[in-house]
C-alpha cells in the first residue's frame, strides 16, 4: 500500500514538473499586469483596452492558462462564452494557431496580450505575468 502511494505521489510529482509553465506575454514595452487583470481581460470584463488573443481550442497551453488564470475548464469556458454571445454581452477573443503566430502578433501590437508556453519564449515579447 505504501509502495503504491509513493508511486502515485512520485508520478504526480513527475506529471506536475513535466507540465510546462504558461506565461502571459505583451510587446517588449508592455508593463506587468496582475492575475485578476488578466482574468478580467480574458473573460472580456471591465473597461480594459487591451486586445486579447487566445490559442486555438485543443492547444494544451490554452487549457493550462485557463485553469490557472480564469479557473475555467475547456467546457466551462465554452459555456461561459455561449452565455456572453447569446446575451449579446461579448464575443470570445480572436484565436491564433501557434506560439509563433502568438509571438509575432503580440510583438507587433503594443496593446495586445496573449500567452504561450514558457519554452517558446524569445526576446520579441515580454513576460508580463507568470500565473
Amino acid at each position, binding site marked *: 500500500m505504501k509502495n503504491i502511494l509513493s508511486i502515485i505521489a512520485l508520478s504526480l510529482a513527475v506529471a506536475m514538473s513535466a507540465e510546462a509553465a504558461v506565461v502571459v506575454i505583451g510587446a517588449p514595452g508592455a508593463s506587468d499586469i496582475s492575475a485578476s487583470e488578466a*482574468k478580467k481581460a480574458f473573460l472580456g470584463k471591465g473597461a480594459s483596452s487591451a486586445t486579447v488573443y487566445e490559442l486555438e481550442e485543443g492547444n494544451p497551453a490554452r487549457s493550462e492558462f485557463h485553469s490557472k488564470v480564469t479557473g475555467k475548464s*475547456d467546457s*466551462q469556458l465554452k459555456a461561459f462564452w455561449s452565455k456572453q454571445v447569446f446575451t*449579446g454581452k461579448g*464575443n470570445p477573443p480572436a484565436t491564433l494557431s501557434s506560439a*509563433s*503566430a502568438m509571438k509575432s502578433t503580440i510583438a507587433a501590437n503594443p496593446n495586445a496580450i496573449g500567452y504561450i508556453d514558457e519554452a517558446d519564449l524569445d526576446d520579441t515579447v515580454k513576460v508580463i505575468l507568470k500565473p
Partner: protein
Amino acid sequence: MHIRHPLHFALKALPLAITAVLLPSQVLADEATEERIAQLEQQVRDLQKQQTASLTDSFTFNGFMSGAYVTADNNSGYLGTSTSADFSEESKLGFQATFSISDQTQAVMQLMMKGENDWDVEAEWAYVSHRFNNGVQIRGGKLRVPLFMYSDYLDVGYAQPFARPPEEVYGAVPFTTYIGGDVSYDVEFDDSTLTIQAFGGESEEDNTDIKNIIGANVMWTDETWTLRAVYGQTTLDGSISRTIKIPSQDPSSGLPIEIDAQLTLLTLDNEKATFSGVGASYDNGQFLAITEWTRSEVDGKYTDVDSGYVTLGYRINAFTPYITAAYYESQDDNERVVVDAQSALIAAIFNGQRTAYSAGLRWDALDNLALKFDVTYANDFGDTSGGFQSNILQQYDDVTVYTVKFDVVF
C-alpha cells in the same frame, strides 16, 4: 609497384569528409529554412485570416440547437408531456446575428424556431445596445425579462448544466420577453464584478396585457460564487382563459366525444403583480451548486406562487452528474372559495402544489455538443392537480418524466 600513399587515401576521402562535415549543417540549414518557411506560411495564413475577419468584422453569426426526446409515465401533463414519445416539446433551433455599428454600439437579433410553437420563427432578442465609456450599458428593443438566473439564455441549453431549468421555478411566470429597455452598470472590484440592472417595458401573453413592467436586479460574481437578487412588478389587464375539454356525445353516433371549449376564467382589471427572487451559485470547476427561490403575487384570484430549487452537480472529466430538488406551491388557495361549478373550476386550475426530484447527467461529448439524460419525479400534489391543467380531475398524484437531449452551439 603501386604504393598507396596515405595522402591518396586522404584525397579520396576528402569529398566524403567534406560531405560528412557539411551534411549536418546543410541539414540544419534546411531545417531552419523549413521552419522559417513554415513560420512565414503561418503568418500569411494568420494575416489572411485577419484580413477576412476584418471584412466580416462587423457581423458575427452564431447558433444553437437542442433536440429532445421526452416521455412520461402518465398523461398528467407535466412539461406538456404524455406517455407517447415527444420530440418537439423541447426541441429548438436558434440563430443569432450581431452587427457592430461601432466599437460601443451593436444590434443583436436572435431568431428562434421551437417545436412547441410548431417551428414558427420568432425573435426572442432584437435590440440595439450602446456601452458608454463609464461602464453604463443601455439596450432597447425586444429583450428577455431578467427574472431568473438563466433567463438571459433560457433557450441555450448548452450554457446550462441541467437538461432544463427546473419547471417548478421557471414555469411559474408565463412570459419571458418584453418590449422596452434596460440600463446596466458594472462595478469592477479587484477580483469580482457587481452588475446592477434596471428594466422597464411591456409585454403581452394570450389575452393579457402585461403593462408597466418595471424592475431591477443586482448580481455579484467572482466567477466561482454568484449571488443575485431581483424585484419586478407589472400591471395585468385582460382575461385569463383556458381551453377545457368537455365530455359530450356525438349527435349522430351517440358515442362519447370531447369538445374543446375556450373558457374565460378570470378577468384582470389592472391588477398589480409583483415578483421577487434570490439566487446563488457556486462553481469551482468541479463541484457545482445552484439555488433559486422566487415569489410571485398577483392581486385577485390569479395564483400567488412560491417556488424554489437546489441543484448539486459534480464534474468528472466530461461527465457532470447532478441532482435537483424543487417545489412549487400556490399560496392563496383560500382566496378561491368554492361555491359553485365555476369557482370549483377556478380553484381546480389555480391551486397547485408539487415537489420534484431530478437525477441527471450532462456529458460533454464533443467540443460544442452536450448530451443530457434526466429523470424527474414529481409528487406531493396534496389535494390539487399538481399545477397541471390537464390533471384538474386529480386523476394522477405523481408523474415521472424521462428526457434524452442534445444541446449544440455553433
